[in-house]
């Protein structure tokens, strides 16, 4: 790459390729699995539902596609999109390349909440139905406490907020570990939840997270221009007319709320929030007006792709999704990093 930031043309190409990848990942999420189903039959079935042509899917195939795989695929799209855009937003608002959506305590808070719920039922099978609710409450409580400690006072800046997040996270993680050790019978289930999985996805969980993801992702993407200005630092952005504190509050609130909703539905899926925005940044440059919308698409495609691998390579058992995201994401990231001149945040 020369001395010039990427051109519009290259950004357009990257955007179109991402959309194509998203379509492939989405269809793949529906047709790939132990029961192999033709992509054309699935597409034909989708059209037949709006009155065009006839479906060639059997009733069983139709159930597998639309009641098992489809909600899982859609939840994966939401989770990937939200985690990626929240991670990119955090990297912008904190001007820190290591920021991920879990930075301010969302993961630790959700983990503690979920552990409470799982430990509470003792030796029963599966995770109780109120796990998402407790995880969500835990996540939002953690971020709120972090904000009250590090983000409220006039002299606070991005660094104090990050440090407050570290403190809150370690406190809650130690509480979670203690609770987990006290109840040896449920360690395995707690552990599985912590690694994150889309296995329990249903249309119900999709509808539950939809409003949060829709609103929060839109707010994050809309903040792109503000984050671009804020790349010159807090004082200079203020002198340029940006109400830095207000922008920071709104953007952090949206990213955290969306992340908390996703985490409560699918557990702690790591790596998407940090790797996807960086991959996108290497391809389209440092402007958040480009990074954030493209991260939504790439994040969604990436997570559905990773989940398809997670549920097929060792079928009928599943790989933890967090393991696959890192296993696939890290080499891709390293490859792009070595091909391109590194770009600072």
């Amino acid at each position, binding site marked *: 790459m020369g*001395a*010039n*930031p990427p051109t519009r043309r290259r950004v357009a190409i990257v955007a179109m390729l991402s959309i194509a990848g998203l379509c492939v990942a989405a269809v793949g999420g529906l047709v790939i699995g132990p029961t192999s189903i033709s992509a054309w039959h699935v597409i034909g079935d989708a059209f037949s539902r709006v009155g065009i042509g006839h479906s060639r899917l059997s009733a069983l195939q139709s159930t597998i596609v639309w009641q098992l795989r489809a909600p899982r695929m859609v939840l994966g799209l939401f989770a990937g999109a939200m985690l990626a855009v929240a991670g990119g937003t955090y990297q912008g608002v904190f001007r820190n390349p290591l920021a991920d959506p879990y930075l301010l305590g969302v993961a630790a808070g959700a983990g503690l909440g979920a552990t409470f719920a799982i430990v509470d039922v003792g030796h029963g099978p599966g995770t109780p139905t109120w796990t998402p609710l407790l995880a969500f409450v835990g996540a939002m409580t953690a971020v709120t406490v972090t904000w009250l400690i590090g983000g409220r006072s006039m002299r606070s800046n991005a660094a104090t907020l990050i440090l407050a997040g570290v403190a809150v996270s370690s406190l809650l993680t130690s509480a979670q570990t203690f609770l987990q050790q006290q109840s040896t019978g449920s360690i395995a289930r707690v552990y599985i939840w912590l690694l994150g999985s889309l296995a329990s996805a249903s249309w119900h969980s999709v509808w539950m997270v939809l409003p949060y993801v829709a609103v929060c992702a839109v707010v994050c993407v*809309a*903040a792109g*221009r*503000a984050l*671009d*200005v804020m*790349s*010159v*630092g807090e*004082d*200079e952005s*203020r*002198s*340029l*007319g*940006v*109400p830095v504190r207000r*922008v920071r509050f709104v953007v952090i609130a949206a990213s955290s709320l969306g992340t908390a909703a996703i985490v409560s539905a699918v557990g702690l899926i790591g790596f998407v929030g940090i790797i996807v925005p960086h991959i996108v940044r290497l391809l389209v*440059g*440092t*402007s958040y007006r480009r990074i954030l919308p493209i991260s939504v698409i790439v994040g969604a495609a990436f997570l559905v792709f990773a989940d398809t691998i997670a549920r097929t390579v060792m079928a009928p058992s599943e790989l933890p999704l967090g393991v696959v995201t890192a296993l696939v994401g890290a080499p891709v990231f390293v490859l792009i990093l070595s091909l391109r001149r590194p*770009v*600072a945040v």
Partner: protein
Amino acid sequence: MSQVELKELSVSVGAKALVANVSLAIEAGTWCTIIGPNGAGKTSLVEAVAGLRPPSHGSVSISGRLLSEMNERERARTVALVPQHPVVPSGMTVYDYVALGRIAYHGLFRAASPDDRRITDSVLERLSLDEFRDRDVITLSGGERQRMVLGRAFAQSTMVIVLDEPITGLDLRHQMELLELLKSEVAECGLTVVATLHDLTLAGQFADRLVLLDRGEVVLDGPAAVVVRSDELASRYGMNLRVVDVDGADVVVPVRR
């Protein structure tokens, strides 16, 4: 009515007063340079004038309006700042950087209007930055970079520009060029300049008025020719200073005791 008016301005951090009880009235279309030894409170003073530091006492008003009663956008359309150590965001083009000055006009949720783009273009041209417009900001040399930061301030289309040590780290030619550019804006557009400078010779040659600040207080305030010749100036710096007339220009030189 003065363009910039400081009334009994104090700026404190904790119990320590960085600027103490400063009152100044600066006329429109003039250049006022704040001089003083390190730690005199120059940066705090100009940051207060730019509205970045809330006064602990007193007030700053520009064009008769109190800065404290403006929101961020209004303030950015009233006074622009060229900071001492500007952040250079790698990956941004020179055009986009200068266009940041228009944010206060088109806002955070709307694209730049044709007017905004026209003003950005004219600033790039005026500061001879046109050839760099698509370059990454980190590829510019020190002189070009500082011109670009000045360009962003010009793009804010304010009547007052505040500069904190704008020529630090530039070679002599670039120092003169930058100050001449600014001087022509003062002459042609009636711009009001409030700057801090360490170089007393350049401070004296470019400013209409010099204000000597020491320990947060105004010690001397007057026409440049008078201030540079004052014994008080030398004593505040704790140095032996001589003023030499070179073709009508005052050159301030330190002499070893």
